[in-house]
């Protein structure tokens, strides 16, 4: 059968006419969508010869072999072709110029003109982010599209970003959008490290159901489409780009800089706790703690630990691109080496990427494209060095050995630097081949085949000097490996036809099949004679202390059929309908197939006669869409029954015993109780999102000022949740579909070319997004195990990480409230001397002067769990960004501001911070803001730890100069320098307010201010 197709292709190819006439060059010009393009100017530069292409896009012009021919059309890029000596035909496809308002927008399984969009799709201008350095491409999108929330809360080398489109909608499933690279779905957004920024032609963000529902059961969180550059036809070009980034801390680290103050404070917090002071000139556990007087004498070490832990990180990135195209084929290759230093010594990340795209026109109308990515990364993990170590402790003891406060002091940075090893290497191969075939006029076939392989290898060795576990067990070695395989086959047909000038219809239909398999192998060994070999020979360990386990193995298949119909009446009224059917092995037996329809209508009001009379309106288009999309949420095998395995002592031997019910987790104090899962639920299905979007695209004065506004209502139901089962079932929980979350919001993008003269340009884009999130339903209160707030009566469940400081989880999910709100006590200042705190603490500890004055909400004169209320909301009121570009001739300056407003941040460890401790309450300093010191105080989670996390950041300033030398070697040179994270306006007391979605500040990896210097050379 395949042979049949091949022979058809061959026949067509042979049938092509190959006419050649000396001096005359003939050819056809095609529009970007493949249709013949009439009216294109075809000129031979330096001569007066010029023709216009005919109705069928053909032309013939006299040109000598070796000379150039230029193709020009308003709003399109000007293309140049060399005439070959054999005078063969020129087939050329025009591309829209990047500054044309009517950009082509890539949508799922196709592309449309921006003006014909019926759904909510945001395009990211690549030039605005091309100079910014980042591990993952998608992390660069912060503030670049309305409704797109990007959080870069970590500066860890190699760290990735958290990305959300229109809020969180899932509790147990993923909330990350789907990333699709050249039609190949790559999974959750945030970690797209394989693609070099320089190789990206466009990024589109599909936000509403009309745009994303074509991705069916993976579309509910929105979709980010990444399209890489295709080699432009024309001359060969080579470019080299290099940038160097030098980083510094953006704020002072919160540690003890004054040892005297530290000692005073330490003594005070011990005494207040009823313990003996430490710094009184005594030896505890072999360590001498000098008295305050001795410290004051200055004879004691004042070690600057920062110097031993941190450095000025330098990041380098070099890209070499080669771009070459002939009449039949084109190649686009990119090599990038990226080396990112962390601020901790030895902490680093290196990456080598090679992206190669190749197009070949097999025959007229048949084009073969391949795209291959090789990516190797190497991460050396060295974080958590104790820069806040006691400054009174010297680096070395009197024998010249490292000074340790005891045998289990694992905090010495130099020891950790030499004895802690953790290295992660990954290999990523992505290979894609596609075939585009213009079967007949109006009918096109696209078929593609993608394969991705990723491997992961982590080597860990902890010598006995770096952790308690390693100390107790004589070293820990690990080798962890993971292997991922993805395969995709996709074929679709597109049919376009315009009937007269009134009706235009476009149909697309296709299918895809994807297969995915992951495996993991984790090995741990302990008990080494010495640390010499590290993890090089796991067999050198104690055989009784070896563990092998594999996890993360799964295989899944997804079979899909999809289609889209676009109909346009008089280019004024547009209708889109999409449909996708997804069948997945992951879904329960009774729900193997999911159907995801969407529809949208759009009205180009500016084409109505009464409005077209207004000359200053260039565009006024309404859009309304509604659709259903899904979130796969379910893991492979989650719907099946799963047996457990234990070891049983049988007649003097351990045997593996197997049966129904497997350990899904642990619960209770010290995790002592098993949680039993493994009962099948064949009815388990995807999470469903129904989304309505109403949008407006408008532009004025020749598109000089532009506005896009969207309102959306996104209702997610059938949320995957675990329900408790009766005890007699022998299972604890079963996965079911219940629960419901609503997101509503408004997005606004304003853009304007405010000044546009020959030499001066000033443009600005303002992006503003507002999202309101609400949990509507958490299932039945009893079977879901919901707790009830006794004061206000709402039902909730705790969520998020447990926080040791408070001995509880910070956040809850509560019906009728936003996700992840903070729940705890209210504090009304500090209890002062002779003040009645309004409650009595049975232990007489918390109602003393200097303690936090908790509010007794229920008026029973005791602080109990009934006094808890909602104390904060980590979800921002709105986010906004402003991008301004000013250019004068070849010099341009851009400033990018990004802000998040109205969110609360939980400052974990606030009262442990030296800055705060120094300002403590004492009888002589009766502060109402800071409690007294107490080394053993148990803190309750209260609004005392909640701060306003709003910030406005000068995120990036970039100054660049294009030097169009047009010389023999260089065509152009561009220099630029930029500053990232120059300054942050915030009231937040911690190091940096940009924290994860749950709003919890952990300290963590300090954020940098980055200075970038770059040069782009084009040959």
């Amino acid at each position, binding site marked *: 059968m395949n042979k049949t197709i091949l022979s058809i292709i061959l026949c067509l190819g042979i049938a092509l006419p190959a006419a050649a006439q000396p001096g005359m060059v003939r050819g056809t010009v095609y529009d970007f969508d493949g249709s013949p393009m009439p009216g294109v100017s075809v000129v031979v530069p330096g001569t007066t010869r010029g023709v216009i292409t005919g109705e069928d896009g053909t032309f013939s012009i006299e040109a000598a072999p070796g000379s150039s021919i230029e193709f020009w059309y308003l709003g399109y890029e000007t293309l140049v072709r060399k005439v070959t000596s054999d005078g063969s035909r020129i087939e050329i496809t025009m591309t829209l110029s990047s500054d044309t308002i009517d950009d082509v927008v890539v949508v799922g399984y196709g592309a449309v003109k921006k003006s014909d969009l019926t759904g909510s799709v945001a395009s990211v201008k690549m030039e605005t982010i091309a100079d910014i350095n980042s591990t993952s491409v998608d992390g660069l999108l912060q503030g670049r599209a309305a409704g797109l929330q990007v959080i870069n809360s970590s500066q860890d080398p190699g760290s990735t970003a958290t990305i959300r489109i229109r809020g969180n909608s899932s509790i147990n499933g993923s909330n990350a959008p789907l990333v699709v690279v050249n039609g190949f779905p790559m999974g959750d957004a945030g970690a797209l490290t394989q693609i070099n920024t320089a190789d990206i032609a466009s990024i589109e963000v599909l936000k509403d159901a009309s745009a994303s529902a074509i991705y069916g059961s993976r579309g509910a969180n929105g979709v980010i489409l990444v399209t890489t550059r295709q080699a432009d036809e024309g001359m060969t070009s080579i470019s080299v780009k290099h940038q160097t980034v030098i980083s510094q801390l953006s704020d002072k680290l919160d540690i003890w800089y004054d040892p005297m103050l530290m000692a005073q404070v330490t003594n005070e917090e011990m005494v207040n706790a009823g313990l003996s002071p430490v710094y009184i000139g005594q030896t505890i556990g072999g360590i001498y703690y000098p008295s305050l007087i001795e410290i004051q004498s200055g004879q004691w070490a004042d070690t600057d630990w920062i110097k031993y832990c941190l450095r000025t990180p330098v990041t380098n990135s070099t890209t070499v691109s080669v771009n070459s195209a002939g009449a039949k084929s084109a190649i686009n290759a990119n090599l990038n080496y990226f080396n990112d230093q962390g601020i901790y010594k030895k902490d680093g990340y290196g990456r080598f990427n090679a992206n190669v795209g190749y197009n070949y026109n097999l025959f007229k109308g048949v084009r073969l494209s391949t795209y291959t990515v090789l990516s190797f990364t190497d991460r050396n993990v060295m974080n958590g060095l104790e820069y806040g170590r006691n400054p009174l402790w010297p680096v070395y003891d009197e024998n010249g050995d490292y000074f340790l406060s005891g045998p289990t002091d694992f905090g010495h940075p130099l020891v950790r630097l030499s004895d802690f090893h953790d290295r992660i290497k990954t290999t990523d191969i992505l290979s894609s081949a596609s075939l585009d075939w213009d079967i007949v006029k109006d009918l096109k076939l696209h078929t593609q085949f993608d394969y991705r392989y990723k491997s992961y290898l982590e080597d860990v060795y902890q010598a006995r000097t770096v952790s308690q576990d390693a100390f107790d067990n004589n070293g820990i070695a690990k080798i962890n490996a993971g292997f991922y395989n993805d395969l995709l086959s996709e074929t679709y047909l597109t049919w376009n036809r315009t009937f007269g000038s009134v009706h235009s219809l476009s149909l697309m239909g296709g299918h895809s099949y994807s297969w995915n398999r992951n495996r993991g192998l984790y090995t741990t060994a302990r008990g080494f004679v010495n640390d010499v070999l590290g993890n090089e020979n796991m067999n050198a360990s104690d055989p009784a202390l070896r563990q092998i386990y594999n996890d993360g193995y799964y295989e899944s298949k997804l079979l899909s059929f999809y289609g889209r119909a676009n109909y346009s009446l008089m280019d004024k009224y547009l209708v889109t309908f999409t449909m996708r059917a997804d069948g997945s092995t992951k879904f329960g037996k009774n729900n193997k197939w999911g159907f995801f329809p969407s529809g949208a209508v759009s009205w180009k009001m500016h084409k109505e006669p009464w409005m077209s009379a207004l000359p200053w309106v260039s565009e006024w288009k309404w859009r309304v869409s509604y659709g259903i999309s899904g979130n796969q949420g379910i893991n492979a095998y989650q719907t099946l029954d799963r047996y457990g395995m234990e070891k049983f*002592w049988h007649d003097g031997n351990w045997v593996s015993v197997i049966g129904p019910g497997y350990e899904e987790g642990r619960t209770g104090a010290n995790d002592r109780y098993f949680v039993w899962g493994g009962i099948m639920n064949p009815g388990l299905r995807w999470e469903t999102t129904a989304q309505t979007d109403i949008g407006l695209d408008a532009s004025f004065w020749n598109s000089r000022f532009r506005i896009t506004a969207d309102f959306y209502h996104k209702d997610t139901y059938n949320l995957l949740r675990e329900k408790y089962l009766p005890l007699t079932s022998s299972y604890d929980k079963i996965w079911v579909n219940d629960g419901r979350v609503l997101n509503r919001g408004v997005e606004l993008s304003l853009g304007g070319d405010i000044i546009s003269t020959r030499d001066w340009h000033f443009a600005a884009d303002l992006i503003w997004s507002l999202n309101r999130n609400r949990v509507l339903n958490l299932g039945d209160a009893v079977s879901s195990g919901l707790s009830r707030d006794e004061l206000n009566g709402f039902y909730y469940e705790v969520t998020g990480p447990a926080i040791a400081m408070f001995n509880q989880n910070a956040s809850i999910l509560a019906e009728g409230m936003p996700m992840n709100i903070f729940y705890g006590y209210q504090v009304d200042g500090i209890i002062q001397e002779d003040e009645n705190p309004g409650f009595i603490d049975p232990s007489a500890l918390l109602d003393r002067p200097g303690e936090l004055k908790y509010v007794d909400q229920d008026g029973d004169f005791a602080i109990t769990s009934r006094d808890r209320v909602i104390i904060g909301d980590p979800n921002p009121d709105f986010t906004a960004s402003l991008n301004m570009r000013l250019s004068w001739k070849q010099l341009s300056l851009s400033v990018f501001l990004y802000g998040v407003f109205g969110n609360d941040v939980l400052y974990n460890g606030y009262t442990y911070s030296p800055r705060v401790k120094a300002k403590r309450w004492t009888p002589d300093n009766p502060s109402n803001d800071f409690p007294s010191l107490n080394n053993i105080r148990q803190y309750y989670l209260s609004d005392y730890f909640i701060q306003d996390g709003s910030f406005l950041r000068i995120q990036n300033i970039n100054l660049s100069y294009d030097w169009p030398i047009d010389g023999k070697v260089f065509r152009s040179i561009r220099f630029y320098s930029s500053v990232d994270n120059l300054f942050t306006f915030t009231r937040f007391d911690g190091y940096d307010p940009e924290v994860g979605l749950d709003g919890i500040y952990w300290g963590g990896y300090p954020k940098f201010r980055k200075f970038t210097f770059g040069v782009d050379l084009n040959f």
Partner: protein
Amino acid sequence: MRKTVIIILAAVFAASCSLDETPYGFYSGDNFYKTEEDAESGLMYAYNALNYLEYLRGIWYVGDIPTDDMYPKSDEPGDIHMLENWTVTSSTELTHYYFKYCYIGINRANAVIEKISSGRFSEAVRKRVVGEAHFLRAWNYFNLVRTFGICPISTKPIASLEQTTSPLASGLMEIYDLIISDCKTADSLLQVNKVFGRTDKVAAEALLSKVYLHLASSKHYGAPSYTDLDYNADDMYANAAIYARKVVQDYPSDYGFDSRLRHIYDVTAPDGPEHIFIMATDRSGTHEGMYTKIPLQFLPNNSSVPIYIKYPDGSLQKGNGNGWGVFLINDDFVEGAYLATDKRRTELLHHSIYDQNGVEITPSPVRGYFTSKYVDPDFIGERTSARPYLIRYSDIALVLAEAAGPAEGYPLVNTIRARAGISPLPSGLSLEDFRRAVINERKLELAFEGNRLFDLRRTASVTSTVQEAASLTEKEAAFYPIPQREVDLNPNVPSTQNN
């Protein structure tokens, strides 16, 4: 034509891609219980349910703490004091987990019974595996019915949401009938096969005798809920005697009295003559459940320095020094119930600890009497091989004595007393007095082995014996409430059940 090609291509893809999911890397109903090895493994998974901390600790938390023999240390966190003080509610954590693990054991046994009864296995394997599974199901239901009374009944493995709400038994007898039928099935399928940690025909008969005795005595002594049941106490005594007699008399080469008292509890000899059913654990395991921490519950804390117990003959026994001393034995119980010369007091109960040279440690960290029934001298950290007896020969000998009466009972009781170094029971006791004497002997012989509460309940003497329960009625003390989660989520269980 081209469309046809596409459609055919699509169809080929569709056919090549079945959406059925096959388990990868784990066992499930689809790929297990296929071979005889699977059958054995599945059966031992059912045994393994007994080993989880949640269930294992119930031996003492349910069997002894609520009674007159033991009490918890006062600062022990958790719900243990609710058991001690007879304030257990439907929310008590300890009874919640005990209840749950009875059903985990039942579900695992049900799976074995269903899958192995029908598969292609050799007759020998099928009989043994299914027989032992019936035994285990009976064992778990017997724990349930004695602890909670009327409970939901499930006799099929639970594999779907629809099956998770088991019906409530119509009455106590429905549960007892199931237990008796399971024991009889086990008895008929099994051979005598004494393997450490497993059960055999003898275990089934032993359990059956205990079940009959529980029914007989409950009725005889007027235990609430049993008085109205439709059976005759003497018939049940007779049934108990029939099966206990088999255990005591028919298998002398495998089962009998261990003449050396301390040897019964020697962790190096778990397969001694008294062994009918013992928990299979070993200190070489990697997590609790594979090994046990039972000694830590009993032994005092000696700041992690190993302690030594000194026996009257001067010999020393090493034990964990990192004990928690949670289970404290009532002074009254030791000093009032045992004769001063009773070896079960002098050799198994202690009030002092010693160092390796036999010098008494002072000041002593011992807070009350502790027992050396669970001491593993070869402990590794907190890991020990201390294993509780689930059924032992002396228990069944006393069942026979109680059920059959003085004629058959005197020699059995007196053998046990002789082993303990005390004089025989006074002769000529009436049947009633003799039974009382046997029950008292059970208290002494089987102390801290998880039997006491059930002996008190079946003789309707909880409230008269246990100080903390004095204000309750015997009916209130008869059962613990069904845990709240079951009441909330199983519509078949009324909220008033056993409350």
